[in-house]
């Protein structure tokens, strides 16, 4: 195993660690606002690390730039989604439970 493969592996493992943290947060945090942190922070750091690892592994600047673009778009999507969902959750309040099947 070369040094770059070792580095890539390290980054990938760290990234999946953050994904795991995100899942634990999703399951263990008490309310929707806390869980948003799992969505926006842990997972995007995980995506960043995985993209970095794959970029190192591919050793091709074109692939690396696509990966970088994907990460930036992931950040954008997470920002907007977190904002919108937090708004929705606050306006709806606690009783925004699933309505019974509209029929």
């Amino acid at each position: 195993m070369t040094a770059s493969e070792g580095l890539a592996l390290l980054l990938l493992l760290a990234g999946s660690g953050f994904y795991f943290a995100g899942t634990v947060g999703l399951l263990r945090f008490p309310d929707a606002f806390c869980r948003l942190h799992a969505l926006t922070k842990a997972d995007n750091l995980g995506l960043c690390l995985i993209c970095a690892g794959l970029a190192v592994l591919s050793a091709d600047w074109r692939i690396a730039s696509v990966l970088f673009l994907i990460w930036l778009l992931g950040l954008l999507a997470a920002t907007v989604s977190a904002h919108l969902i937090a708004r929705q959750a606050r306006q709806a309040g606690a009783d925004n439970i699933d309505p019974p099947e509209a029929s």
Partner: protein
Amino acid sequence: MLGIVLDLVIIASLIALAIQVVSGASLFRGIIHFIVMGLTLALAWARLGAPDLAMAEAAIGAGVTGALMMVAYRRLVEITPDHNPSRTGSRSRLALPIAVGAGGLVGLLGLGATLSDPEPGLAGLAVLEALQDEALGNPITGVLLLYRGLDTLLEIAVLLTAFLAAVAVTRREDLDYSITTRDPHTPLVGALLAIIVPLTVLVSVHLLKAGSHDPGGAFQAGAVLAACGVLLVLTSRVSASSQSRPLIGLGIVAGLISFSLIGLAAMLRGEPPMALPGMWAVYFIETAMMLSIALTLVLLFAGTESLRRNQHG
């Protein structure tokens, strides 16, 4: 070995999600599970070595279907109907045996085909051979344009029919409000649009151009463009209008008309119908089809025959 385990996990989650979709406690949960099923299906396509399909699934599943179902659900919640009928459930005892029988039949069919016929499909071989002397490097685009011309043409016609039918059954008055997001003018949404809209256009043109030699093509490009349109409708930058516009009408039928004209021209020259005269025709038809598919899907989403731009600050 790990690949098989991966396949097993993908399959198990697909099945679990499907069960949740049909039997989950609430309709909203069904929608969420259906969307997640689309994500998992993309992984399955990747594992089956079909990136073209994964691409179509990504564009349609993430961009169109999810929004479509959310909006339909919203309309169900928002609309107060005149009377409130009693709930009915039709739980037949025959359901399970019929389902098992149907699944078993499909499985037998598939297993029979996989186990007894290890020969590669003749049609596929013929396509790959014939494509040797065409300039198309992506066999899927080749099949769609060179061999199934009539079929692809009819597909555009089906899209058009679905659109006309959807317009016919949708009421005009409650169109406008119920498909936009709650506060479409928050600064973040503007920033999102400023980045995503140009990018989707760029990506769809790239997919269209790449479609002749790499995964991509008119369907995927059209789906991405349609997702961009859905985004604009959702954020009320563009909204439903009942006054028809010639440009939109032209866009809807562009694929159908250019495909038929070029096909008919081939017939007039004495060649078989739908034979394409060259690469320029492929690009021309693909572009027209992309526009038609995108426009028709957006209009289907909005449930209206025309769109107008909204002025805002």
